[in-house]
């Protein structure tokens, strides 16, 4: 009780724009600080590791382009989560939709073969990815729209179905996707060169990055400028208000979830066409779909911020790989996963400080925790008077 008396939370009267930036930045710093503790405990020197990470991820041309390549799928899955979460539709299934997009994209590319000219093949590959992602979310979306079934459960469970289906397509001896020349360890059949996404010079950056950024711009435009975006914002704020205005809520739910699946599927197609060039479980199963949720949350579901956050997180992931070959000693790749987790935890915790501030000493005005009686727990429906 006495400890509570000293510090308490007070609602900020107004949230200023700089707080929206300062809080995430402070959260990331806090995440890195926690990481430093772990590094020290495991016998590494943070003052060596962090600069090395920085150069591996951002401050060298090679590192930075690699970071952009790692960020590309994260933009897609980040957008997938952002468009859905923002309106209270929790698509946890970007992971599975990404696999489905990858399966569809590689299937179409393989079926078209070498004969088709590159622009047509690439377009077909990307569209197939979109279609695959949409198909994978179609059933959860319909169940949510008509039956009100929680999309959280259905999309999550379908992730496992997609993962095992993809494995089956690679390992199955009669599978169209399997590379017949890989006799000792099964692998996906490489897609024809015409369907590969163009790369920037000698780097690993590919056309998928441009497509992903374009998608982010498009999503922003739709949300801010169009009728659909307006209706979505109304729906996201109050479903009752949407119904009152005569907005077809069912159609909105379908549209949002299908768009979310499409964006994740697009990320899958980008990975096939731009990086793996074949259906490849090792390369895909990095939790890109789940990482997209982290990206979206850090970006506060803002599509343009998703791009920036994806680059940041892509850098952390990319540095994790690079660190293993650090001359000073082997830094485990798990460090980057740990940092990702720490940053997420601090950012989600930091959200609280955007809306509230800490007050020390006795407070006035706010209902303090000093007295159980003054803690508002149950309150009647907000009266219309103010």
């Amino acid at each position, binding site marked *: 009780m006495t400890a509570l008396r000293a510090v308490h939370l007070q609602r900020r*009267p107004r949230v200023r724009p700089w707080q929206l930036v300062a809080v995430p930045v402070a959260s990331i710093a806090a995440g890195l600080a926690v990481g430093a503790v772990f590094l020290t405990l495991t016998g590494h020197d943070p003052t060596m590791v962090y600069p090395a990470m920085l150069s591996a991820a951002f401050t060298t041309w090679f590192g930075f382009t690699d970071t952009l390549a790692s960020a590309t799928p994260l933009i897609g899955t980040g957008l997938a989560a952002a468009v859905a979460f923002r309106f209270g539709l929790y698509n946890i299934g970007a992971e599975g939709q990404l696999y489905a997009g990858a399966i569809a994209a590689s299937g179409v590319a393989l079926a078209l073969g070498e004969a088709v000219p590159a622009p047509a093949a690439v377009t077909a590959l990307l569209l197939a990815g979109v279609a695959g992602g949409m198909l994978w979310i179609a059933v959860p979306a319909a169940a949510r729209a008509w039956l009100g079934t929680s999309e959280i459960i259905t999309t999550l469970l379908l992730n496992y179905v997609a993962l095992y289906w993809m494995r089956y397509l690679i390992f199955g001896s009669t599978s169209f996707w399997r590379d017949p020349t890989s006799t000792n360890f099964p692998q996906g059949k490489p897609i024809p060169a015409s369907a590969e996404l163009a790369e920037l010079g000698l780097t690993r950056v590919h056309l998928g990055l441009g497509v992903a950024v374009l998608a982010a711009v498009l999503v922003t435009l739709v949300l801010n*400028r*169009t*009728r659909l*975006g*307006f209706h979505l*914002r*109304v729906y996201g*704020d*109050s479903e*009752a*208000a*949407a*119904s*009152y*205005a*005569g907005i077809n809520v069912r159609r909105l739910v379908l549209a949002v979830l299908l768009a979310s699946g499409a964006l994740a599927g697009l990320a899958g197609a980008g990975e096939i066409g731009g990086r793996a060039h074949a259906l490849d479980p090792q390369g895909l199963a990095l939790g890109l779909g789940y990482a997209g949720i982290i990206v979206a949350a850090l970006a506060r579901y803002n599509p343009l911020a998703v791009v920036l956050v994806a680059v940041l997180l892509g850098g952390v992931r990319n540095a994790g790989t690079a660190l293993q070959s650090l001359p000073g000693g082997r830094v485990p790749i798990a460090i980057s996963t740990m940092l990702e987790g720490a940053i997420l935890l601090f950012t989600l915790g930091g959200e609280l400080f955007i809306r509230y501030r800490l007050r020390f000493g006795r407070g*006035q*005005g706010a*209902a303090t925790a*000093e*007295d*159980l*009686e*003054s*803690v*508002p*727990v*149950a*309150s*009647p*429906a*907000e*009266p*219309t*008077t*103010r």
Partner: protein
Amino acid sequence: MSGQSASGARRSGADAASSAEAPVVEARGVGKVFPGVTANAGVDLAVRRGEVHALLGENGAGKSTLASILCGLYQPDEGTVLVDGRPVTLRNPRDGLARGIGMVHQHFRLVERFTVAENIVLGDRRQPLVLSAGRVRSAMVELGERYGLSIDPDARVGDLAVGEQQRVEITKMLYRGVDVLLLDEPTAVLTPQEADALFTTLRAMAADGKAVVLISHKLGEVLAVADRVTVLRDGRVVGAVAADATDRHQLATMMVGREVDLSPRRAQSPPGVAVLDVRGVSLRPPGRPARLAGVSLQVHAGEVVGVAGVAGNGQRELAEVVAGLRAPTEGTVVVAGRGTTGRGARAARGAGLAYVPEDRLGTGLAPSLSIADNLLLTRPLGFFVDRRTATADARCVIERFDVKATGPAAAVRGLSGGNVQKVLLGRELSDSCTVLVVASPTRGLDVGAIEFVRDLLDERRRGGVGVLLLSEDLDEIRALADRILVLFEGRIVLERAGGDADLTELGLAMAGAGA
């Protein structure tokens, strides 16, 4: 109408206490400043045993702040609080309770997952380590009988209706032995029937020698239940008067600071053609009792038809069927000659209907969207939304309706109740509608805003709009309606002309007598 049942007991308590006796609690020159606002300045208030003392004022006048100072939640920046004539410093609500002062806040402070009895003893340091359920129970039974506060001690607070939760709060304070009970806008969350029951309780407490401070901005209830009234405006006391030496008009003028006209308004010219025709509308959810049963009514151009009824008797359903939000099981709705039955909200709007729902924030408006966006809510939109025009339109509405807001980009949830209603009316009334459905348009608003809304609806009526006004507040209905229908259990049980409707007759019909 509220409080009639209580007025019998009225003032007997006040006579018992001699007026020479020192006030049980008193504020002298109390001031309180919040960042940027002076909530109280030089406030004097004296509350005596045996009286119901009303603290009247518009929203933001400083009523809650003053009460919070008296109960120890806030500390005054200047001035003193006296209890039984002696200056005291109340550092927190526990100090207040120790001196016999307790407050029931607008937002209840109960633990939903606890039972009623557990909530009542919560935070009471007189309780032994092991709670004796029997003692609490018998005390509750005794208080319940004395003051008409019956509640099941074993019910979970989260399962109770708002009115019952309020009784828990009051019982809790009485159980703590308060002599002074402050209630902050207790009727804001109550139905008129529940409010009447509360007033009976308050009168019983006064008759028992307790002091009751009733915070309100409703003139009717203040006049019906209080012995004395202190009026606050902009943080200052405008005056303190005896309830039987004043009237609505004087109180409204003191409260608002200018003359307010709340007299009834009626149509000046005979009604025109029927613009809304509802025939035989029924709504029967499968396996449950009918919500509407064969309702027929017509609204003519230039006429206000009031539908009175206690909440839950089908008004909301009727409004939603007319507005196209629900399809009736049977019957037809015709808006300005066009059949709109079950064809959705857009079809009804397309035919010339506008709808102001009772739930303004959440249904009529999207709370976190801006004023500009909310004004677009029911407009037909092209593929692209034209932000610039929307912002300009919002500026017009803000100016024309004198909405207090930082600008078109302000979120509506940050506005006060009156301004929220202005935004909603600004959208629904600026369309060239022929039929207007409004539900409880002045509920929860303060006097100045009520006058504004009534004037606006009256102006629409004179402009030839047919208005369907649904409300459970007879004062609201009688102030505007040319014809009054009473809805009881989904049926129209009474129809009267607005001018000569008898209050008792309407009240009985609403309660189902003779239906």
